[in-house]
Protein backbone atom coordinates (compact mmCIF):
# COMPACT_ATOMS: atom_id res chain seq x y z
CA UNK A 1 0.00 0.00 0.00
CA UNK A 2 1.40 3.37 -0.95
CA UNK A 3 1.58 5.97 1.82
CA UNK A 4 -0.58 9.04 1.43
CA UNK A 5 1.46 12.01 0.27
CA UNK A 6 1.39 14.90 2.70
CA UNK A 7 4.00 17.09 1.05
CA UNK A 8 5.26 17.00 -2.47
CA UNK A 9 7.81 19.34 -3.99
CA UNK A 10 8.16 19.28 -7.76
CA UNK A 11 11.03 20.78 -9.79
CA UNK A 12 11.51 23.62 -7.35
CA UNK A 13 13.87 26.48 -8.15
CA UNK A 14 14.12 29.24 -5.58
CA UNK A 15 16.16 32.35 -4.78
CA UNK A 16 17.16 34.57 -1.94
CA UNK A 17 17.55 38.04 -3.38
CA UNK A 18 19.43 37.70 -6.66
CA UNK A 19 20.95 34.38 -5.81
CA UNK A 20 19.36 31.15 -6.90
CA UNK A 21 19.81 28.73 -4.03
CA UNK A 22 17.53 25.80 -4.85
CA UNK A 23 17.84 24.05 -8.17
CA UNK A 24 15.35 21.42 -9.21
CA UNK A 25 14.44 20.10 -5.79
CA UNK A 26 12.07 17.14 -5.73
CA UNK A 27 10.84 15.73 -2.46
CA UNK A 28 7.93 13.64 -1.25
CA UNK A 29 7.02 13.15 2.38
CA UNK A 30 4.22 10.72 3.15
CA UNK A 31 1.82 10.84 6.08
CA UNK A 32 3.44 9.51 9.24
CA UNK A 33 6.97 9.80 7.85
CA UNK A 34 9.89 11.67 9.36
CA UNK A 35 12.77 12.59 7.08
CA UNK A 36 16.30 13.75 7.87
CA UNK A 37 18.10 16.30 5.72
CA UNK A 38 21.90 16.29 5.58
CA UNK A 39 24.37 18.40 3.69
CA UNK A 40 27.27 20.81 4.07
CA UNK A 41 26.76 24.44 5.09
CA UNK A 42 25.35 26.75 2.44
CA UNK A 43 23.84 24.04 0.34
CA UNK A 44 20.23 25.16 0.68
CA UNK A 45 18.82 23.08 3.53
CA UNK A 46 17.58 26.02 5.60
CA UNK A 47 16.39 27.75 2.44
CA UNK A 48 14.30 24.71 1.55
CA UNK A 49 12.61 24.76 4.95
CA UNK A 50 12.04 28.52 4.78
CA UNK A 51 10.54 28.13 1.31
CA UNK A 52 8.16 25.46 2.57
CA UNK A 53 7.25 27.71 5.51
CA UNK A 54 6.63 30.59 3.10
CA UNK A 55 8.99 33.22 4.54
CA UNK A 56 8.59 36.19 2.19
CA UNK A 57 12.30 36.94 1.70
CA UNK A 58 12.59 33.68 -0.25
CA UNK A 59 11.12 33.53 -3.72
CA UNK A 60 10.06 30.55 -5.74
CA UNK A 61 11.29 30.92 -9.35
CA UNK A 62 9.53 27.85 -10.66
CA UNK A 63 8.16 24.51 -9.57
CA UNK A 64 5.47 23.81 -7.04
CA UNK A 65 4.85 22.84 -3.46
CA UNK A 66 1.81 20.68 -2.81
CA UNK A 67 0.62 20.18 0.76
CA UNK A 68 -2.46 18.14 1.62
CA UNK A 69 -3.24 18.16 -2.10
CA UNK A 70 -3.29 21.98 -2.17
CA UNK A 71 -0.85 24.06 -4.16
CA UNK A 72 0.70 26.21 -1.44
CA UNK A 73 3.55 27.60 -3.56
CA UNK A 74 2.28 31.16 -3.22
CA UNK A 75 0.25 30.92 -0.04
CA UNK A 76 1.06 33.32 2.84
CA UNK A 77 3.02 31.86 5.70
CA UNK A 78 0.30 32.21 8.31
CA UNK A 79 -2.15 30.38 6.03
CA UNK A 80 0.38 27.59 5.65
CA UNK A 81 0.78 27.46 9.42
CA UNK A 82 -2.96 27.19 9.87
CA UNK A 83 -3.06 24.48 7.22
CA UNK A 84 -0.70 22.45 9.38
CA UNK A 85 2.90 23.42 8.69
CA UNK A 86 5.06 24.16 11.72
CA UNK A 87 8.69 25.15 12.02
CA UNK A 88 11.27 25.32 14.80
CA UNK A 89 13.55 28.26 14.10
CA UNK A 90 17.26 27.94 14.43
CA UNK A 91 17.72 31.46 15.76
CA UNK A 92 14.31 32.82 16.67
CA UNK A 93 13.89 36.46 17.68
CA UNK A 94 13.03 37.51 21.24
CA UNK A 95 9.70 39.22 21.63
CA UNK A 96 9.57 41.86 24.28
CA UNK A 97 6.50 41.97 26.48
CA UNK A 98 5.03 38.71 25.17
CA UNK A 99 5.09 36.01 27.80
CA UNK A 100 5.65 32.48 26.59
CA UNK A 101 2.47 31.37 28.37
CA UNK A 102 0.46 34.00 26.51
CA UNK A 103 1.95 32.97 23.18
CA UNK A 104 1.02 29.34 23.87
CA UNK A 105 -2.54 30.45 24.57
CA UNK A 106 -2.66 32.48 21.36
CA UNK A 107 -1.28 29.59 19.31
CA UNK A 108 -3.77 27.12 20.75
CA UNK A 109 -6.35 28.19 23.32
CA UNK A 110 -7.35 24.56 23.97
CA UNK A 111 -3.98 23.37 25.09
CA UNK A 112 -2.83 23.07 28.73
CA UNK A 113 0.23 25.33 28.86
CA UNK A 114 1.43 23.96 32.19
CA UNK A 115 1.63 20.38 31.02
CA UNK A 116 3.53 21.42 27.88
CA UNK A 117 6.01 23.48 29.85
CA UNK A 118 6.44 20.60 32.25
CA UNK A 119 7.00 18.14 29.41
CA UNK A 120 9.92 20.26 28.20
CA UNK A 121 11.23 20.77 31.73
CA UNK A 122 10.49 24.41 31.21
CA UNK A 123 8.35 25.39 34.19
CA UNK A 124 9.08 28.92 35.30
CA UNK A 125 9.67 30.07 31.74
CA UNK A 126 5.97 30.60 31.08
CA UNK A 127 6.11 34.02 32.67
CA UNK A 128 9.24 35.07 30.79
CA UNK A 129 9.21 37.07 27.57
CA UNK A 130 9.48 34.72 24.59
CA UNK A 131 13.16 33.87 23.97
CA UNK A 132 14.35 36.97 25.81
CA UNK A 133 17.62 36.21 27.54
CA UNK A 134 17.20 32.49 26.86
CA UNK A 135 20.32 30.32 26.52
CA UNK A 136 20.84 28.17 23.43
CA UNK A 137 19.21 25.13 25.00
CA UNK A 138 16.34 27.22 26.39
CA UNK A 139 15.60 28.66 22.97
CA UNK A 140 15.29 25.12 21.57
CA UNK A 141 12.95 24.10 24.37
CA UNK A 142 10.91 27.24 23.83
CA UNK A 143 10.56 26.27 20.16
CA UNK A 144 9.47 22.75 21.06
CA UNK A 145 6.88 23.98 23.58
CA UNK A 146 5.39 26.26 20.94
CA UNK A 147 5.27 23.45 18.37
CA UNK A 148 3.68 21.09 20.87
CA UNK A 149 0.98 23.75 21.29
CA UNK A 150 0.64 24.27 17.56
CA UNK A 151 0.37 20.53 16.81
CA UNK A 152 1.32 20.86 13.14
CA UNK A 153 0.73 17.99 10.72
CA UNK A 154 4.12 18.64 9.19
CA UNK A 155 6.91 19.86 11.44
CA UNK A 156 10.22 21.26 10.24
CA UNK A 157 13.22 21.39 12.54
CA UNK A 158 16.35 23.29 11.64
CA UNK A 159 19.22 21.90 13.69
CA UNK A 160 17.30 21.41 16.92
CA UNK A 161 20.44 19.84 18.40
CA UNK A 162 22.94 22.61 17.71
CA UNK A 163 24.41 24.17 20.81
CA UNK A 164 22.45 21.85 23.06
CA UNK A 165 23.86 19.59 25.76
CA UNK A 166 23.19 15.85 25.80
CA UNK A 167 20.41 15.99 28.35
CA UNK A 168 18.54 18.56 26.30
CA UNK A 169 19.11 16.65 23.07
CA UNK A 170 17.30 13.71 24.61
CA UNK A 171 14.42 15.90 25.73
CA UNK A 172 14.13 17.51 22.31
CA UNK A 173 14.29 14.10 20.60
CA UNK A 174 11.40 12.96 22.77
CA UNK A 175 9.40 16.04 21.86
CA UNK A 176 10.00 15.43 18.16
CA UNK A 177 8.83 11.84 18.56
CA UNK A 178 5.70 13.17 20.20
CA UNK A 179 5.14 15.71 17.41
CA UNK A 180 5.53 12.99 14.80
CA UNK A 181 3.47 10.42 16.70
CA UNK A 182 6.26 7.89 17.04
CA UNK A 183 4.43 6.54 20.08
CA UNK A 184 1.77 5.20 17.71
CA UNK A 185 1.99 2.17 15.44
CA UNK A 186 3.33 3.21 12.01
CA UNK A 187 0.02 2.57 10.30
CA UNK A 188 -1.76 4.95 12.69
CA UNK A 189 0.67 7.85 12.27
CA UNK A 190 -0.54 10.80 10.28
CA UNK A 191 1.92 13.48 11.34
CA UNK A 192 5.16 14.00 9.50
CA UNK A 193 8.34 15.95 9.81
CA UNK A 194 11.67 16.90 8.36
CA UNK A 195 14.81 17.60 10.35
CA UNK A 196 18.11 19.25 9.47
CA UNK A 197 21.01 17.94 11.50
CA UNK A 198 24.76 18.15 11.06
CA UNK A 199 26.04 15.52 13.37
CA UNK A 200 23.04 13.31 13.75
CA UNK A 201 23.27 13.23 17.58
CA UNK A 202 19.58 13.87 17.82
CA UNK A 203 18.86 10.84 15.62
CA UNK A 204 19.90 8.60 18.50
CA UNK A 205 16.87 9.84 20.39
CA UNK A 206 14.29 10.09 17.62
CA UNK A 207 13.06 7.94 14.81
CA UNK A 208 13.47 8.81 11.14
CA UNK A 209 12.13 6.94 8.17
CA UNK A 210 14.16 8.37 5.33
CA UNK A 211 17.12 10.66 4.75
CA UNK A 212 18.31 13.00 1.99
CA UNK A 213 21.63 14.60 1.19
CA UNK A 214 21.59 18.08 -0.28
CA UNK A 215 24.49 19.23 -2.43
CA UNK A 216 24.69 22.35 -4.58
CA UNK A 217 21.07 23.34 -4.00
CA UNK A 218 19.44 20.05 -4.86
CA UNK A 219 18.69 16.71 -3.30
CA UNK A 220 21.52 14.55 -4.53
CA UNK A 221 20.75 11.34 -2.76
CA UNK A 222 17.98 9.73 -0.71
CA UNK A 223 17.79 6.54 1.27
CA UNK A 224 17.89 4.82 4.61
CA UNK A 225 18.89 7.29 7.37
CA UNK A 226 21.40 5.03 9.10
CA UNK A 227 23.07 3.96 5.89
CA UNK A 228 23.39 7.56 4.69
CA UNK A 229 24.70 8.86 7.99
CA UNK A 230 27.30 6.07 8.15
CA UNK A 231 28.46 6.88 4.62
CA UNK A 232 28.69 10.61 5.42
CA UNK A 233 30.74 9.85 8.53
CA UNK A 234 33.14 7.64 6.57
CA UNK A 235 33.33 9.30 3.15
CA UNK A 236 31.95 12.81 3.57
CA UNK A 237 28.88 14.23 1.84
CA UNK A 238 30.19 13.94 -1.70
CA UNK A 239 31.64 10.54 -1.09
CA UNK A 240 28.32 9.39 0.28
CA UNK A 241 26.47 10.63 -2.80
CA UNK A 242 29.07 9.08 -5.15
CA UNK A 243 28.79 5.75 -3.40
CA UNK A 244 25.07 5.44 -2.75
CA UNK A 245 23.62 7.46 -5.60
CA UNK A 246 26.07 7.35 -8.53
CA UNK A 247 24.92 9.21 -11.60
Amino acid at each position, binding site marked *: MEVIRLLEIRNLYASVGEKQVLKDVNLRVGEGETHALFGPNGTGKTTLLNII*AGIPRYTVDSGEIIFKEKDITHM*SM*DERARLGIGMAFQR*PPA*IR*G*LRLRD*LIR*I*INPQVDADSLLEAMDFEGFGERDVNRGFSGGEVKRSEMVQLLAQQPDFVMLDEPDSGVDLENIKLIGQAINRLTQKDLRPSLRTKSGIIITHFGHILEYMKTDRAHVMLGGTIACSGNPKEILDQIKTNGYEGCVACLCPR
Partner: protein
Amino acid sequence: MSKIEEKARQARAKKALYGTDIDLEGYEAESRGHEAVRRAEDLPEDVKKAALDVGVKLDSESSGAFVQMDQTPVVAETALEGVEIMDIASALKKYDYLQDYYWKLVSPDADKYTADVAASPPAGYFVRAKKGIKTVFPIKSCLYLGSTNFNQRVHNIVIAEEGSELHVITGCTTPSHVQRGLHLGVSEFYIQKDAKVSFTMIHSWGREVEVRPRTGIVMDEGSSLSNNYILLRPVRTLQTFPTATLNGRGAVASFNTVIYASMGNLDVGSNVILNAPETSAESISRVVSVGGDVIARGRMTGKVPGARAHLECVGLLLSDKGRIYSIPELDGQSRDLDMSHEAAVGRISEEELEYLMARGLTQDQATSVIVRGFLDVEIKGLPEELKQEIKDITQREDLRGA
Protein backbone atom coordinates in the same frame (compact mmCIF):
# COMPACT_ATOMS: atom_id res chain seq x y z
CA MET B 1 -7.45 90.89 44.53
CA SER B 2 -5.19 88.11 45.80
CA LYS B 3 -1.73 87.55 44.39
CA ILE B 4 -2.84 84.36 42.71
CA GLU B 5 -5.77 86.07 41.03
CA GLU B 6 -3.54 88.93 39.97
CA LYS B 7 -1.00 86.59 38.38
CA ALA B 8 -3.77 84.66 36.69
CA ARG B 9 -5.25 87.81 35.25
CA GLN B 10 -1.93 88.84 33.77
CA ALA B 11 -1.29 85.46 32.14
CA ARG B 12 -4.79 85.12 30.67
CA ALA B 13 -3.50 85.19 27.10
CA LYS B 14 -0.06 83.71 27.67
CA LYS B 15 0.65 80.90 25.25
CA ALA B 16 2.25 77.75 26.57
CA LEU B 17 5.81 76.92 25.61
CA TYR B 18 4.82 73.61 24.07
CA GLY B 19 1.75 72.22 22.38
CA THR B 20 -0.79 73.69 20.01
CA ASP B 21 -2.53 76.79 21.26
CA ILE B 22 -6.12 76.47 22.44
CA ASP B 23 -8.73 79.18 22.28
CA LEU B 24 -10.28 78.95 25.74
CA GLU B 25 -13.24 81.05 24.63
CA GLY B 26 -14.33 78.09 22.52
CA TYR B 27 -15.29 76.14 25.62
CA GLU B 28 -18.02 76.56 28.22
CA ALA B 29 -16.90 77.59 31.69
CA GLU B 30 -20.16 76.63 33.36
CA SER B 31 -21.75 73.22 33.56
CA ARG B 32 -24.73 71.78 35.36
CA GLY B 33 -24.09 70.61 38.91
CA HIS B 34 -24.06 66.99 39.97
CA GLU B 35 -25.41 65.41 43.11
CA ALA B 36 -22.81 64.37 45.63
CA VAL B 37 -22.93 60.89 47.15
CA ARG B 38 -21.36 59.66 50.34
CA ARG B 39 -19.65 56.59 48.93
CA ALA B 40 -18.18 55.76 45.55
CA GLU B 41 -20.39 52.70 45.13
CA ASP B 42 -23.48 54.95 45.26
CA LEU B 43 -22.43 56.69 42.04
CA PRO B 44 -24.48 56.21 38.87
CA GLU B 45 -23.62 52.98 37.07
CA ASP B 46 -22.43 54.72 33.90
CA VAL B 47 -19.92 56.78 35.88
CA LYS B 48 -18.62 53.68 37.66
CA LYS B 49 -18.35 51.91 34.35
CA ALA B 50 -16.45 54.81 32.79
CA ALA B 51 -14.06 54.79 35.76
CA LEU B 52 -13.57 51.06 35.40
CA ASP B 53 -12.68 51.61 31.78
CA VAL B 54 -9.72 53.73 32.84
CA GLY B 55 -8.56 51.22 35.42
CA VAL B 56 -10.33 52.71 38.43
CA LYS B 57 -12.29 49.97 40.20
CA LEU B 58 -14.44 52.02 42.53
CA ASP B 59 -16.13 48.94 43.98
CA SER B 60 -12.99 47.15 45.08
CA GLU B 61 -10.86 47.75 48.13
CA SER B 62 -9.11 51.09 48.33
CA SER B 63 -7.62 53.54 50.75
CA GLY B 64 -10.10 56.11 49.58
CA ALA B 65 -11.79 57.57 46.56
CA PHE B 66 -12.40 60.87 44.87
CA VAL B 67 -14.66 61.53 41.92
CA GLN B 68 -15.27 64.81 40.19
CA MET B 69 -17.95 65.16 37.54
CA ASP B 70 -17.39 68.21 35.38
CA GLN B 71 -16.73 70.89 38.02
CA THR B 72 -18.48 69.17 40.94
CA PRO B 73 -16.69 66.90 43.40
CA VAL B 74 -19.24 64.13 43.98
CA VAL B 75 -17.26 61.75 46.19
CA ALA B 76 -14.40 62.37 48.60
CA GLU B 77 -14.18 59.27 50.70
CA THR B 78 -11.50 58.25 53.14
CA ALA B 79 -11.24 54.56 53.93
CA LEU B 80 -8.16 54.48 56.05
CA GLU B 81 -7.22 56.37 59.14
CA GLY B 82 -4.18 58.48 58.52
CA VAL B 83 -5.14 59.14 54.93
CA GLU B 84 -7.13 62.22 54.24
CA ILE B 85 -9.09 62.84 51.07
CA MET B 86 -11.09 66.00 50.57
CA ASP B 87 -12.18 68.20 47.76
CA ILE B 88 -9.67 70.99 47.48
CA ALA B 89 -12.11 73.84 48.17
CA SER B 90 -13.13 72.35 51.51
CA ALA B 91 -9.54 71.54 52.35
CA LEU B 92 -8.45 75.14 51.70
CA LYS B 93 -11.20 76.34 54.01
CA LYS B 94 -10.31 73.84 56.71
CA TYR B 95 -6.53 74.13 56.71
CA ASP B 96 -4.76 77.47 56.68
CA TYR B 97 -1.43 75.70 56.24
CA LEU B 98 -2.52 74.57 52.78
CA GLN B 99 -1.81 78.08 51.51
CA ASP B 100 1.86 77.07 51.75
CA TYR B 101 1.25 74.30 49.22
CA TYR B 102 -1.31 75.94 46.97
CA TRP B 103 0.20 77.16 43.68
CA LYS B 104 3.72 76.71 45.01
CA LEU B 105 5.00 74.11 42.50
CA VAL B 106 2.97 75.23 39.52
CA SER B 107 2.72 78.93 38.96
CA PRO B 108 -0.66 80.51 38.19
CA ASP B 109 0.99 82.57 35.47
CA ALA B 110 2.87 79.67 33.85
CA ASP B 111 0.52 79.89 30.88
CA LYS B 112 -3.08 80.64 29.98
CA TYR B 113 -4.18 77.20 31.19
CA THR B 114 -2.79 77.51 34.69
CA ALA B 115 -4.16 81.05 34.70
CA ASP B 116 -7.59 79.76 33.76
CA VAL B 117 -7.52 77.19 36.56
CA ALA B 118 -6.35 79.85 39.02
CA ALA B 119 -9.10 82.23 37.98
CA SER B 120 -11.81 79.64 38.65
CA PRO B 121 -13.17 78.51 42.00
CA PRO B 122 -10.94 75.59 43.07
CA ALA B 123 -12.08 72.05 42.30
CA GLY B 124 -10.04 68.87 42.54
CA TYR B 125 -8.67 66.72 45.29
CA PHE B 126 -6.53 67.13 48.33
CA VAL B 127 -4.85 63.93 49.46
CA ARG B 128 -2.62 63.63 52.47
CA ALA B 129 -0.91 60.58 53.91
CA LYS B 130 0.02 61.37 57.46
CA LYS B 131 3.46 60.71 58.86
CA GLY B 132 4.42 57.04 58.74
CA ILE B 133 1.12 55.83 57.28
CA LYS B 134 1.67 53.11 54.72
CA THR B 135 -1.19 52.30 52.40
CA VAL B 136 -1.40 49.03 50.56
CA PHE B 137 -4.50 49.73 48.53
CA PRO B 138 -4.51 52.62 46.11
CA ILE B 139 -6.52 55.77 46.39
CA LYS B 140 -8.82 55.79 43.42
CA SER B 141 -9.83 58.91 41.69
CA CYS B 142 -11.78 59.66 38.60
CA LEU B 143 -12.09 62.97 36.82
CA TYR B 144 -15.12 62.71 34.63
CA LEU B 145 -15.77 65.19 31.86
CA GLY B 146 -19.45 64.57 31.25
CA SER B 147 -20.72 67.66 29.40
CA THR B 148 -20.02 68.40 25.78
CA ASN B 149 -17.76 71.38 25.12
CA PHE B 150 -17.10 71.95 28.81
CA ASN B 151 -13.83 73.30 30.15
CA GLN B 152 -13.03 71.10 33.15
CA ARG B 153 -10.56 72.72 35.49
CA VAL B 154 -8.95 70.65 38.20
CA HIS B 155 -6.45 71.48 40.91
CA ASN B 156 -5.02 68.64 42.98
CA ILE B 157 -2.63 68.68 45.89
CA VAL B 158 -1.01 65.53 47.20
CA ILE B 159 1.11 65.50 50.33
CA ALA B 160 2.93 62.38 51.42
CA GLU B 161 4.32 63.14 54.82
CA GLU B 162 7.53 61.76 56.24
CA GLY B 163 7.84 57.99 55.98
CA SER B 164 4.42 57.48 54.43
CA GLU B 165 3.55 55.31 51.48
CA LEU B 166 0.84 56.36 49.09
CA HIS B 167 -0.49 54.92 45.85
CA VAL B 168 -2.86 56.94 43.72
CA ILE B 169 -4.55 55.97 40.49
CA THR B 170 -6.39 58.63 38.56
CA GLY B 171 -8.53 57.88 35.58
CA CYS B 172 -9.59 60.81 33.45
CA THR B 173 -12.34 60.10 31.01
CA THR B 174 -15.30 61.23 28.96
CA PRO B 175 -18.38 59.13 28.33
CA SER B 176 -18.84 58.09 24.71
CA HIS B 177 -21.50 60.72 24.01
CA VAL B 178 -19.05 63.52 24.86
CA GLN B 179 -16.57 63.97 22.03
CA ARG B 180 -15.57 67.56 22.51
CA GLY B 181 -14.20 69.21 25.63
CA LEU B 182 -11.21 70.63 27.46
CA HIS B 183 -9.45 69.28 30.53
CA LEU B 184 -7.03 71.49 32.45
CA GLY B 185 -5.42 69.80 35.41
CA VAL B 186 -2.99 71.36 37.86
CA SER B 187 -1.34 68.92 40.25
CA GLU B 188 1.14 69.63 43.00
CA PHE B 189 2.92 66.77 44.74
CA TYR B 190 4.88 67.10 47.95
CA ILE B 191 6.81 63.96 48.71
CA GLN B 192 8.45 64.41 52.05
CA LYS B 193 11.37 62.68 53.71
CA ASP B 194 11.47 58.91 53.10
CA ALA B 195 7.95 58.90 51.67
CA LYS B 196 7.11 56.59 48.81
CA VAL B 197 4.54 57.57 46.22
CA SER B 198 3.19 55.99 43.09
CA PHE B 199 0.96 58.01 40.84
CA THR B 200 -0.66 56.33 37.89
CA MET B 201 -2.75 58.29 35.45
CA ILE B 202 -4.81 56.71 32.74
CA HIS B 203 -6.48 58.88 30.15
CA SER B 204 -9.34 58.04 27.83
CA TRP B 205 -10.90 60.93 25.97
CA GLY B 206 -13.22 61.73 23.11
CA ARG B 207 -11.78 62.42 19.66
CA GLU B 208 -12.20 66.19 19.96
CA VAL B 209 -11.00 66.62 23.53
CA GLU B 210 -8.01 68.79 24.37
CA VAL B 211 -5.94 68.14 27.46
CA ARG B 212 -3.38 70.25 29.33
CA PRO B 213 -2.14 68.76 32.60
CA ARG B 214 0.30 70.90 34.58
CA THR B 215 2.24 69.04 37.23
CA GLY B 216 4.88 70.02 39.76
CA ILE B 217 6.55 67.59 42.12
CA VAL B 218 9.03 68.20 44.89
CA MET B 219 10.89 65.38 46.57
CA ASP B 220 12.73 65.42 49.86
CA GLU B 221 15.52 63.25 51.22
CA GLY B 222 15.17 59.50 50.70
CA SER B 223 11.79 59.76 49.00
CA SER B 224 10.72 57.89 45.91
CA LEU B 225 8.21 58.39 43.14
CA SER B 226 6.88 56.15 40.42
CA ASN B 227 4.92 58.28 37.99
CA ASN B 228 3.05 56.50 35.22
CA TYR B 229 1.04 57.91 32.37
CA ILE B 230 -1.00 55.82 29.98
CA LEU B 231 -2.94 56.98 26.93
CA LEU B 232 -4.16 54.40 24.45
CA ARG B 233 -7.18 56.11 22.95
CA PRO B 234 -7.71 58.97 20.53
CA VAL B 235 -7.49 62.57 21.68
CA ARG B 236 -7.33 65.78 19.68
CA THR B 237 -4.46 67.51 21.46
CA LEU B 238 -2.52 66.81 24.61
CA GLN B 239 0.47 68.52 26.08
CA THR B 240 2.08 67.66 29.37
CA PHE B 241 5.55 68.09 30.83
CA PRO B 242 5.49 67.30 34.55
CA THR B 243 8.44 68.68 36.44
CA ALA B 244 9.98 66.89 39.39
CA THR B 245 12.61 68.55 41.54
CA LEU B 246 14.66 66.16 43.62
CA ASN B 247 15.74 68.36 46.49
CA GLY B 248 16.70 65.79 49.10
CA ARG B 249 19.66 63.47 49.19
CA GLY B 250 18.95 60.04 47.74
CA ALA B 251 15.56 60.86 46.23
CA VAL B 252 14.60 58.54 43.35
CA ALA B 253 12.11 59.34 40.60
CA SER B 254 10.88 57.10 37.85
CA PHE B 255 8.63 58.20 34.97
CA ASN B 256 6.93 55.79 32.61
CA THR B 257 4.93 56.98 29.64
CA VAL B 258 2.94 54.67 27.42
CA ILE B 259 1.24 56.14 24.36
CA TYR B 260 -0.68 54.62 21.49
CA ALA B 261 -1.63 57.43 19.15
CA SER B 262 -4.05 56.80 16.34
CA MET B 263 -4.64 60.50 15.72
CA GLY B 264 -4.17 63.93 17.22
CA ASN B 265 -1.35 66.10 18.28
CA LEU B 266 0.49 64.92 21.38
CA ASP B 267 3.39 66.53 23.18
CA VAL B 268 4.38 64.49 26.20
CA GLY B 269 7.36 64.03 28.44
CA SER B 270 8.87 64.69 31.79
CA ASN B 271 11.32 67.12 33.26
CA VAL B 272 13.50 66.14 36.20
CA ILE B 273 15.87 68.37 38.12
CA LEU B 274 18.38 66.48 40.20
CA ASN B 275 19.22 68.95 42.86
CA ALA B 276 20.80 66.88 45.63
CA PRO B 277 23.57 64.31 46.00
CA GLU B 278 22.81 60.66 45.31
CA THR B 279 19.56 61.44 43.59
CA SER B 280 18.60 59.39 40.58
CA ALA B 281 15.95 59.53 37.93
CA GLU B 282 14.78 57.38 35.09
CA SER B 283 12.34 58.24 32.37
CA ILE B 284 11.05 55.64 29.97
CA SER B 285 8.64 56.40 27.19
CA ARG B 286 7.16 54.00 24.71
CA VAL B 287 5.22 55.52 21.90
CA VAL B 288 3.34 53.81 19.10
CA SER B 289 1.90 55.98 16.37
CA VAL B 290 -0.48 54.72 13.75
CA GLY B 291 -1.42 58.23 12.69
CA GLY B 292 -0.88 60.52 15.66
CA ASP B 293 1.70 63.29 15.69
CA VAL B 294 3.72 62.72 18.85
CA ILE B 295 6.54 64.66 20.41
CA ALA B 296 8.18 62.61 23.13
CA ARG B 297 10.31 64.75 25.37
CA GLY B 298 12.53 63.98 28.27
CA ARG B 299 14.71 66.41 30.08
CA MET B 300 17.07 65.72 32.92
CA THR B 301 19.11 68.39 34.62
CA GLY B 302 21.92 67.30 36.90
CA LYS B 303 22.93 70.09 39.25
CA VAL B 304 25.10 68.40 41.84
CA PRO B 305 27.86 65.79 41.80
CA GLY B 306 26.74 62.19 42.12
CA ALA B 307 23.36 62.58 40.45
CA ARG B 308 22.37 59.83 38.06
CA ALA B 309 19.83 60.02 35.26
CA HIS B 310 18.72 57.87 32.38
CA LEU B 311 16.27 58.61 29.59
CA GLU B 312 14.78 56.14 27.19
CA CYS B 313 12.49 57.29 24.37
CA VAL B 314 11.53 54.47 22.07
CA GLY B 315 8.96 54.80 19.33
CA LEU B 316 7.28 52.52 16.83
CA LEU B 317 5.99 54.44 13.85
CA LEU B 318 3.54 52.31 11.92
CA SER B 319 2.07 54.76 9.44
CA ASP B 320 3.16 57.46 7.00
CA LYS B 321 0.43 59.65 8.48
CA GLY B 322 2.01 59.65 11.91
CA ARG B 323 5.09 61.23 13.31
CA ILE B 324 7.25 60.55 16.33
CA TYR B 325 9.66 63.28 17.27
CA SER B 326 11.86 62.12 20.09
CA ILE B 327 13.68 64.80 22.05
CA PRO B 328 15.84 63.52 24.87
CA GLU B 329 17.73 66.27 26.64
CA LEU B 330 20.48 65.95 29.20
CA ASP B 331 21.71 69.04 30.93
CA GLY B 332 24.73 68.43 33.12
CA GLN B 333 25.66 71.32 35.38
CA SER B 334 28.20 69.74 37.67
CA ARG B 335 31.12 67.34 37.73
CA ASP B 336 30.72 63.64 38.62
CA LEU B 337 27.39 63.15 36.97
CA ASP B 338 26.18 60.00 35.34
CA MET B 339 23.58 60.83 32.72
CA SER B 340 22.62 58.89 29.63
CA HIS B 341 19.88 58.46 27.11
CA GLU B 342 18.80 56.21 24.33
CA ALA B 343 16.30 57.10 21.69
CA ALA B 344 14.97 55.10 18.80
CA VAL B 345 12.20 55.44 16.29
CA GLY B 346 11.61 52.42 14.17
CA ARG B 347 9.27 49.83 12.84
CA ILE B 348 8.16 46.38 13.80
CA SER B 349 10.83 43.83 13.03
CA GLU B 350 10.03 41.63 10.03
CA GLU B 351 11.70 38.77 11.78
CA GLU B 352 9.36 38.99 14.77
CA LEU B 353 6.32 39.24 12.50
CA GLU B 354 7.39 36.20 10.49
CA TYR B 355 8.11 34.24 13.62
CA LEU B 356 4.61 34.75 14.95
CA MET B 357 3.03 34.19 11.54
CA ALA B 358 4.85 30.88 11.32
CA ARG B 359 2.86 29.95 14.42
CA GLY B 360 -0.38 30.70 12.60
CA LEU B 361 -1.05 34.28 13.69
CA THR B 362 -2.30 36.55 10.94
CA GLN B 363 -0.23 39.62 10.17
CA ASP B 364 -2.72 41.80 12.06
CA GLN B 365 -2.69 39.53 15.09
CA ALA B 366 1.09 39.35 15.08
CA THR B 367 1.37 43.15 14.78
CA SER B 368 -1.03 43.64 17.64
CA VAL B 369 0.83 41.16 19.86
CA ILE B 370 4.14 42.92 19.16
CA VAL B 371 2.65 46.37 19.78
CA ARG B 372 1.15 45.25 23.10
CA GLY B 373 4.47 43.74 24.12
CA PHE B 374 6.27 46.94 23.18
CA LEU B 375 3.92 48.99 25.35
CA ASP B 376 4.15 46.58 28.27
CA VAL B 377 6.63 48.53 30.38
CA GLU B 378 8.00 46.85 33.45
CA ILE B 379 6.98 49.36 36.11
CA LYS B 380 8.74 49.32 39.43
CA GLY B 381 7.28 50.46 42.72
CA LEU B 382 3.65 49.69 41.95
CA PRO B 383 1.36 47.50 44.01
CA GLU B 384 0.37 44.24 42.28
CA GLU B 385 -3.21 45.37 41.73
CA LEU B 386 -2.13 48.42 39.77
CA LYS B 387 0.46 46.48 37.79
CA GLN B 388 -2.28 44.07 36.80
CA GLU B 389 -4.66 46.90 36.00
CA ILE B 390 -2.17 48.48 33.62
CA LYS B 391 -1.49 45.13 31.99
CA ASP B 392 -5.21 44.46 31.59
CA ILE B 393 -5.78 47.85 30.00
CA THR B 394 -3.06 47.24 27.42
CA GLN B 395 -4.45 43.77 26.76
CA ARG B 396 -8.04 44.74 26.22
CA GLU B 397 -7.45 47.76 24.03
CA ASP B 398 -7.74 47.24 20.32
CA LEU B 399 -4.15 48.08 19.38
CA ARG B 400 -3.24 47.37 15.82
CA GLY B 401 -0.95 48.40 13.04
CA ALA B 402 -1.87 51.09 10.55
